[in-house]
């Protein structure tokens, strides 16, 4: 009896002591950790800030600072080549988003609702598509498009836009699949079952129950595919054909001559576009998780969890 009485008081004493002890002990470690974390964030932001700052350079060369001004923005938007590459990029991004979202949403539902031996293989295939170095994908897609377009006479594969959409969709459809799967796995099937019990045919069940539930994942998946496509450089520089050069390929090519401040100016505009899209993704996902109480976060999905 005495022990049972003793123990709580002992524990109470411990817990009362502990915060004090910890307060004495932890500050140094925590401060160091905090400094490290903040320094890490500054490190991650550093070159982005450099680009934004240098987009206001009025000099002729990007690297050597001349003066502050908005000339480069005006020059960028008045340069027909730059504007054309941006148009190519935006169209390819939209196309890739549509293709990846359709393919990925279907696959995500299938994986979440019905496992099985094939599911392991599909996940392995998607994982492989995500981790294979881009350069290997790029050098293998180029001969394949040439084979399809020139040797087999399927002229659709000679179109730069088609090639870009296909190339960009390979990684993005895997991302969409994992986002949709994470979303669907967090929701139980009782609503679909209830609809089935009430006699709703499968197609109606899908559009009235399943799709509204997966919509946030589909929207964020589409937006992420869009930004992924906008950023893609390696695949684009191999598969794109003359006349449909996307923006990153133009930047990459101008590295060999001189980098002009216009590049930084347009990159800043594209950065703002990407940030706006990401903010939309964050809003859609957080609203969805608040509604259903399911916390399948963006980082978790991106990290493949």
């Amino acid at each position, binding site marked *: 009896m005495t022990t049972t009485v003793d123990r709580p008081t002992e524990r109470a004493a411990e817990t009362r002591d502990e915060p004090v002890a910890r307060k004495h002990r932890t500050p140094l470690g925590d401060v160091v950790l905090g400094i490290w974390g903040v320094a890490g964030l500054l490190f*991650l932001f550093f070159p982005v800030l450099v680009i934004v700052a240098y987009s206001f350079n009025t000099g002729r060369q990007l690297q050597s600072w001349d003066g502050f001004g908005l000339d480069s923005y005006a020059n960028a938007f008045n340069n027909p080549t730059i504007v054309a590459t941006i148009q190519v990029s935006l169209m390819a991004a939209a196309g890739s988003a549509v293709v990846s979202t359709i393919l990925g949403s279907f696959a995500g539902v299938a994986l979440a609702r019905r496992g099985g031996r094939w599911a392991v293989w599909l996940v392995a295939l998607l994982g492989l598509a995500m981790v294979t170095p881009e350069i290997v994908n790029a050098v293998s897609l180029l001969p394949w498009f040439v084979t399809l377009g020139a040797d087999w006479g399927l002229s659709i594969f000679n179109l730069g836009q088609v090639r870009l959409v296909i190339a960009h969709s390979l990684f993005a459809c895997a991302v969409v699949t994992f986002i949709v799967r994470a979303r669907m796995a967090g929701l139980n099937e009782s609503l679909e079952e209830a609809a089935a019990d009430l006699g709703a045919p499968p197609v109606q069940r899908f559009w009235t129950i399943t799709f509204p539930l997966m919509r946030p994942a589909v929207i964020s998946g589409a937006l992420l595919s869009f930004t992924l496509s906008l950023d893609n450089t390696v695949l684009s520089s191999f598969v794109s054909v003359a006349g449909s050069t996307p923006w990153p390929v133009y930047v990459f090519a101008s590295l060999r001559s001189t980098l002009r401040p216009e590049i930084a100016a347009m990159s800043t505009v594209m950065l703002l576009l990407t940030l706006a899209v990401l903010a939309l993704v964050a809003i859609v996902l957080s609203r969805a998780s608040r509604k259903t109480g399911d916390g399948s976060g963006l980082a978790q999905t991106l990290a493949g969890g």
Partner: protein
Amino acid sequence: MTAVATAPPRARRRFTGSVGLLALPIAAWLVFFFIVPFGLILWYSFGEKPSLYVTHSNDVLSLARYVEALDPAFLTTFWRTTQIAIVGTALCLLIGFPIAYWMAVKLSPRARGIVLALVLVPYWTNFLVRTIGWQITLSPEGFLSDFLNGIGVLNGPLQVLYTQQAVQLGVVYNYLPLMILPLYVALERMDHRLLEASRDLGGNWWSSFWRVTIPLALPGIMSGLLLVFVPLMGDYITPSVLGGASGSMVGQMVAGQFQRAQNWALGSAMAICLMLAILLVVILFGVLFKLIGVALARFRHLGDLDRAGAIS
């Protein structure tokens, strides 16, 4: 009652039976545009470049392209690439782990979300543009050079750009978020009470770290290493922007065969070599981690035995 109990499973089976078919389009898409092209370059790698104006021919099959690919120039670049990739992955882990730990354990949930967003923003910025940011910074006539000269650390222009060190810095920077994210996810999932329990049971900071935090973070560490190492080995952008001649990597050699030399047979063989090397290193890492896991378990077991012995 039985009717109610049996109806849902039957309905579900009918519904989900067709659901499985929804995975077919993506599988077909990936096989046609990912697996088959890879098979194609595998096939080309056994061929040759017959003449100046033809990119490839498979009339004569041989392993000669692999022999040609593994010449001293390629092996030098290959060794440099492996070196940059291993050092880069290790640095990402060393730099990224404290950041992820700080985010997951020390921050309040609200601050966690904001900091996570801050990590994601540079990650979603164009890879090429971020790397150009470093090129501006490191260039001999750039602001960092002027600043270092101004405070007297440096005498003369900064000579870092177009060296292996510049590439090393660039890859650590470019792949750091890919290390932080999986580590953060693993550490965030960790039950923090376990750390407190370990401390309450008399464990000091060091032993709680090795015996609680590290084993729980191991899946995150492994996926982080994989996510950083594999794309880093094939990186093509970072060395092109920061490397110059002395910091070139294998990705550029493969690209060169396809874009400039127009020798698809040799380029394919190089790409296959790269894939095989990556696979080899990943398998080696996997075995190494298994051994570390076994060693950790053994160590823990021995420690427990030791303590038991000391008590009795």
